């Protein structure tokens, strides 16, 4: 569908008060909404690169473009964008923005929304409009492009997104290590103070198959160094020395495999062994992340489920995968969900299979400015036709 067709479809749906669902890469396979009878606008065929002048370090793309395609296009010109979405070969730019996804390199390069400089979109009544542009600084009027970030397709259909791109670092090197007993806290502190600053850093337990490296008594770490060639070897020496001081005698280095290892870590929570499993991600502060991870682990242990944990050391996100057995999982999922949200109110469900999951609280804590969001929703989509069922925006949160 081109812009006009989307505009017509929306105008018609609006006039007929018929709901419309928006389909991106579908990485979420409907976890976040009730199944309802609605027309679908499939954005996946809209994957053109509309404007790319590498010398300006800006790019404008259609929102159905996948994260992987974006990465490949930019890489040819030695540039990149830290979209860092899981399942990048499926996840679309529109979905990544609509879900307000932000990855483990955001402390260093910003979130996708930080690099977003403009957009075009279709409103519920079919009006086509745009905001921002192709310049890296722009304060002419309200920042509507960023307003739509996190909108989960409930405010407008994103058609085009413009980004400021970044020069690609010369080299990437992944540092992997098993943590000897009693080193976890010290390792966290050292890693957060490393110079040059890590591009990403994780601590994990579990995820044996998804993540490289040997399990240690205290879990293991993966730290990504991205820098110029001239700095690579000196930084490696410094990092190893600093980690040594934290009690970590050995680190394994991946050069050729660094990118693949990074991708595996992004994808890990989306890989569910069968249908009796759930993945959550909770934001938190770096200073609280370890305690939160331990606290969530305790909850899952109480339910006698198997668990895997991933902590983003630089940004504080805690990702948890809980795997149960067929006999009891469906029945226990609701209690587990409540117990996890008690400890991590902002935890959101990333992935989950099986029955009954649409009854879970996949979004977690409602925002303080919910009234403002609902008022915007009511104004931009008065008949509530866009992605109904994402309940918290239209007042039907269970």
């Amino acid at each position, binding site marked *: 569908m081109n812009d006009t067709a989307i505009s017509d479809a929306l105008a018609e749906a*609006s006039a007929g008060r018929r709901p419309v669902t928006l389909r991106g890469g579908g990485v979420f396979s409907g976890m976040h909404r009730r199944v309802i009878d609605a027309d679908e606008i499939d954005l996946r065929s809209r994957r053109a690169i509309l404007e790319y*002048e*590498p*010398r*300006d*370090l*800006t790019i404008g793309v259609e929102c159905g473009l996948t994260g992987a395609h974006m990465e490949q296009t930019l890489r040819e010109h030695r540039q990149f964008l830290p979209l860092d979405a899981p399942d990048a070969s499926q996840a679309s730019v529109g979905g990544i923005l609509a879900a*307000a996804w932000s990855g483990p390199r955001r*402390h260093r390069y910003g979130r996708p*929304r930080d690099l977003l400089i403009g957009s075009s979109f279709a*409103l519920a*009544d*079919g*009006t*086509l*409009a*745009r*905001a921002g*542009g*192709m*310049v*890296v*600084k*722009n*304060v*002419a*009027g*309200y*920042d*509507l492009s*960023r*307003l*739509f*970030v996190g*909108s989960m397709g409930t405010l407008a259909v994103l058609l085009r997104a413009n980004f400021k791109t970044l*020069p*690609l670092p010369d080299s990437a090197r992944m540092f992997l290590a098993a943590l000897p007993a009693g080193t976890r806290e010290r390792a966290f502190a050292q890693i957060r103070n490393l*110079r*040059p600053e890590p591009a990403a850093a994780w601590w994990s337990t579990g995820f044996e198959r998804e993540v490289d490296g040997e399990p240690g008594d205290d879990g293991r770490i993966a730290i990504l160094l991205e*820098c110029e060639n*001239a*700095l690579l070897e000196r*930084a490696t020496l410094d990092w190893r020395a600093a980690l040594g001081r934290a009690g970590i005698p050995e680190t394994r280095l991946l050069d050729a495999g660094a990118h693949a290892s990074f991708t595996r870590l992004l994808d890990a929570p989306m890989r569910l062994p069968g249908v009796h499993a759930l993945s959550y991600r909770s934001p938190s*502060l*770096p200073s609280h992340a370890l305690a939160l991870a331990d606290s969530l682990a305790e909850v899952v242990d109480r339910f006698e489920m198997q668990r895997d944990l991933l902590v983003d050391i630089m940004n*504080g996100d805690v990702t948890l995968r809980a795997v149960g057995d067929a006999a009891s999982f469906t029945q226990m999922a609701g209690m587990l969900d409540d117990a996890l949200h008690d400890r991590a109110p*902002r935890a959101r469900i990333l992935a989950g299979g099986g029955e009954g999951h649409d009854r879970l609280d996949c979004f977690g804590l*409602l*925002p*303080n*400015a*919910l009234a*403002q*969001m609902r008022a*915007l929703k009511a*104004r*931009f989509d*008065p008949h509530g036709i866009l992605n109904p069922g994402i309940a*918290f*925006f239209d007042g039907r949160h269970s």
Partner: protein
Amino acid sequence: MKIARDLAEPLIARGSGTGLCGGAAPLRAGIVLSFARMNQLLELDIENRRARVAPGLVNLQLSERIASTGYFYAPDPASQRASTIGGNIGTNAGGPHCLAYGTTVNHVLALEIVDDRGECFTTAVEDLGYDLTALLVGSEGTLGIVTSAWVRLLRIPSTTGVWLAAFPSIESASEAVSAIVGAGIVPTALEMMDATIVRAVESAYAAGYPADAAAVLLVESSGEPEEVASADAAIARIARAHGATKWQAATSADQREALWRGRKGAAGAVGRIAPNYYTQDVCVPRTRLPEMLAAVDDAARKHGIVVGNVFHAGDGNLHPLLLYDKRDARQVAAVIEIGNLVLARAVELGGTISGEHGVGIEKRNGMSMVYRTEDLAAMACVRDVFDPQALLNPEKIFPSGISCREMRT
């Protein structure tokens, strides 16, 4: 706010009033709310690299007060000695170092807002739902009043290099800027000054700029020593290839400081050479910089007005300063005319009518040059949701005749 509402009078938030588009100026009766004394650093959380500040805290004071911790607040408008973080949030202020670090919106983590009814709400980038934090940043006090903000702090880089390059013409300097960015080099700052500015700055501050240069680039790179060294080599090579007559490094903290003092004091220095000046602010794609500068020069020449250029070249963000005498009606008319020509040319080149100063009163009509009625109506709907009675800084941003009603329902 509640008083304003009871009186049905507008309320205009004011930081330090350094805004350049009339944003904090009331157009009719109303209440001007000054944050000058709400200037506390409320919380400092170094472990999580953030601070909570009251809106009246002066930008530079934040970095100065936390310097001993090894952290700093990155957005640094040239007005940072005077302008407040609340005002910076109001305008989404940029600054020389925004080339590498981004503008204010990239550094605000959460906001506490007083709405048009005098009620409080909070937003955070991590919150579920619409990115109201980004919407409120740059909304020029028209959607709510910022009463406190959590901002990001960055670690002070281990090494910083500052260089000065002198060029025989403004064209060669702007082509060098396009080439540097085009080569995928993003220094921490890349600022340009033309001959008018260089001479004004030298006579005011003796910053060490070559007084005979037609244009000067001020370049800063920071990071690890190896990174700074390779930026030095690569940028010097590009500068020379574009005819740079001089490539000089600041070798001490004092010299770096002196070079920056010149840049940050440029506006003040210009005040010494002309009775009045008008600062224009447009942003164009970086490859279009040479064309944009040629257009500025052309327009100024045609109208017999002296122009000085001092700007954030690496971002394509121009600030032509048009020097004039406001007692001369002809000059005033010419300056307004040039200002409009500059806006029109920037839009033609794929740019925008304001890179960092905002719309305020000054550029309301310019909004229709970049946006269509539908685009503006969508913005007007947002305004209508937050402030239906138009009590918050009314008559700003929107050209007359734009309203939310123009959306089909």
